[in-house]
């Protein structure tokens, strides 16, 4: 066992402590049963962790909170500042894990959109497959984003990302302009 100087005395970030995990010392593996294991070289090894995006809509590639999945209340171990700085294999595992824990699909095409009794009924193609859902016909469920896109929330509180409308097809733009004023 090599002797390395430890940075942290405790495995979990203390109250008020902002801890960033060094990307080159961070290794992710899949352990038996597909638990995501995190090893911090020279520090600690955690058998099962959960990753959570701190900004799932506005900055999904950065600021990922890493939490211990086995301890009560899932205390935070630290933060991965930028997924792109991880080694390719670690990044792939992290993204796979996050895809399965941040369930906000991105709409690529709106196939149908109609209004009925105060609701909007959608049929959309997303990056996770085709989806039909309903939203309230009000601006409360629409959050506009700085890039010209938006996030809509359906009646089940699922959220759907709409990319910048200029990137979408004419038919989709027309529907979004008509019903969502985007």
């Amino acid at each position, binding site marked *: *066992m*090599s002797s*390395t100087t*430890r940075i942290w005395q*405790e*495995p*979990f970030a203390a109250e008020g402590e902002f801890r960033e995990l060094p990307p080159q010392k961070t290794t992710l*593996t*899949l*352990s*038996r*049963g*597909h*638990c995501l*294991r995190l*090893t*911090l*070289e020279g*520090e*600690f*090894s*955690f*058998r*099962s962790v*959960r990753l*959570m*995006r701190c900004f*799932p809509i506005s900055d999904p590639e950065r600021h990922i909170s890493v939490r*211990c999945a*086995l*301890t*009560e209340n899932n205390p935070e171990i630290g933060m991965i500042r930028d997924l792109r700085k991880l080694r390719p*294999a670690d990044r*792939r*595992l992290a993204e*796979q894990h996050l*895809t*399965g*824990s*941040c*369930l*906000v699909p991105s709409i690529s095409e709106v196939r149908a959109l109609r209004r*009925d*009794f*105060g*609701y909007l*009924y959608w049929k959309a193609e*997303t990056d*996770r*497959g*085709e*989806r039909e859902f309903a939203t309230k016909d009000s*601006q409360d469920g629409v959050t506009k984003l700085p890039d010209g896109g938006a996030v809509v929330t*359906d*009646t*089940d*509180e*699922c959220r759907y990302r709409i990319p910048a409308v200029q990137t979408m097809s004419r038919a989709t733009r027309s529907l979004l302009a*008509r019903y969502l*004023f985007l």
Partner: protein
Amino acid sequence: MIAHVSDSPFGDVRERLPDSLLKKLDADGQAIGEIREAAASDLKPDGRYGEEWLLVTGSQLLVYSMEEPGARREPLPDPSECLEPDPTARQEREPAPGMEDDLCGEELDLADDPGDGWLPESGMAMVELPDPDEKVTWRLRRRLPLSTAARAGTNTLTCGGELTVEVGGLPQRLMLFSAALFDEFVALRVRIAALAQGRETELEEDGRVRGSRCRDCGRALEPGTEECPHCTGRGRVLFRLVRLAMPYRARLGVILGLLLLGVGIGLVPPFLVRTLIDRVLTSGERPDWLLPLVLSIFVLQGTRAVINMVHGRLAVGVGSRLTTDLRRRLFAHLTGLSVSFFDRTQVGRLMTRVAQDTEELHVFIGQALRGFLVPGVMAVGITAMLFWLNPVLAVYVLLPIPLVAVATYFFYRSIAPRHQRYYKTRSRINAFLNTCLSGIRVVKAFGQEPREQTRFAEHNEGLRSARMAVDQVWAVFFPGVLLAFQSSVLLVWYFGGSRVLAGEVSLGTMMAFLGYLGMLHGPVSVLSQVGQWLTRSLTSAQRIFEMLDRKPEIVEPESPKDVGNFRGEIEFRNVTFGYVPNQPVLRDVSFRVRPGEVVGVVGRSGAGKTTLAGLTARFYDPQKGQVLLDGRDARTISSADLRRHVGLVLQSPFIFRGTIAENIAYGKPGANRQEVLRAATAADCHEFVSNMPLGYDSEVGERGAGLSGGEKQRVSIGRAILHDPQVLILDEATSSLDTEAERLIHEALARLVKGRTTMIIAHRLSTLRGCDRILVMDRGRLAESGTHESLMRMPGGIYRGLVESQDRVPLKSGAGTVPAA
């Protein structure tokens, strides 16, 4: 969707499972009769949409995943890419929680188990090839012993969740699901855990399941309702609207009669004009008819004007009364609903229902008569007159009308969303102004004026653009419609004129044609909008009826028991309660408070302290167990009695708009001024109130603007003193105050609690030192109970730990701590 085999409200599992899956189960040799639970998810493990079924037998958990031929499959992780744990990582002798060595747990026999299509020993990925003859195939993705579900869990993810089971001591994800299925999977977790533990459990049937859907059409329902607006049908909503108007049927009958009379009268003048031209002006046949005809036309038009005035006034009167009645009914109904309804519903939305949707119905009454019935009758009448005058000419003249009607329909279809956009943009700018100007101190404190000005400019520009979009369409529409009608007129001139020249039609007839054509324009335009206003009105009506149809969750007892001489004893007997069923906030809580006893309730955030207060005041009913007041179940006591004897002082006192005296006397409207003064004195607010320029007649704004936090709290204590309840609940009544204000309020509270049964909920434990007894809540359970001294003597006790942590104040990190002053 959840299918319970044994007591399924959804029928046999066979009926719930897709046929293709049943075939697969048959092929796999899985007996359908062994399946005890079946649930479907809408997400695959990689987060893509897709159907998966969890089947629970007496010994196994099976997860079947739907595969469509040609569907893209996420590659399974390549085992060679999974690195071994870093051998250089320090292994603590006493590892931190979560880092213990592998527990023995239950070893799975993976020899026959495809798992997730991955055998870790060989590192080979297994892929099942789809049957080319099947459109849909199913793959057994996971098979686990039922025992792994004994500690099944659900975790909330972003816009969804995961169902986990425990394998080898580690929680493992079994299935993913979207937020739409969250409540169902929470219930499923309870169910399968019970099955794995060999016990039965009841699932709570609850109409408050989030994201509930109509069972017939699958469309979304408003939370807490069972009425689907789509399946209800517009006809039914219309019928209910008509029924609302029934009390006014006599007046409506008069209005209708007048309107039809007006239509009839309106059809006569062009006919008289024809006579005037043919028999008086052109032929000179009856010159003596000139004055009578002109006078007749004047009288008819004058009569029509009077009729319009009369029915206009009557219609406005009926519309206003109906709207007023409806608002009164709606408000009364809303105030009768339970607290849990208001927990879930935004106040703004309720305000819209009461204020705006009812106003929309006011318009409906007028539109129904003037916007639909009358134009319809008029259009029919005019058409009949035209055909009566000259059928051939009528056909030519009426040709453009359908085109105008269609164009008008599409116009209003196009302008409606523009109007909506304009109204919503206007709402947004109002909301922005409200927020920015209300928080102007914060804006200035952080020097963000330029930023807010930029944001306002964006909103302003949006409003301009929305307004332009509306006005531009109007600017195009009217000239267009005018042109269409003018073409009709030209057709009359041409075809009519040629027939006049040929002697087939008189000039008077042609002029009558022109007169009737002019009268047709209005009704055609109005009728083209019927769909729009009907939809708008029915939507508003549906929203109102949906509120009126809600039933309060706290039901008044049919034969309430008389409280009599209320002593103030409170008992919780095996109470389990959750705001969302199957997610209990209180678990099997039992305690008794004697009359006159002062009891403190402590615990960490989320322990269930405020929930105790809500249950005592009967804002909610427990799902299990009983809340007893003087030995009587609270559900058998009338709300009026209960409210008279149970008083509440909340952390955030709510001060209504009105005078200070009105606020103090809120719980006892008939209180005289002496009583108000006594209560204010006891609450230590007399001093500051009497020093105000208008004293007790001082108007305080919404939410008590003009009073400090401590002053508001003392006014609310005065309100409670005047109310004079036997049971008093103080829910963190001093937590938001400074030390001096808290001291004053403690003195007032001491006077308030004398002789009353009191439950004090507090974070600051120093406020509870004088309590007769302290209840310590921990994660929904009553963990400890006793006096302050007895609880402090408990080694490792929760209360003792809370007191010690509150009594010590850290100097700085790592420098040790010192006792609080």
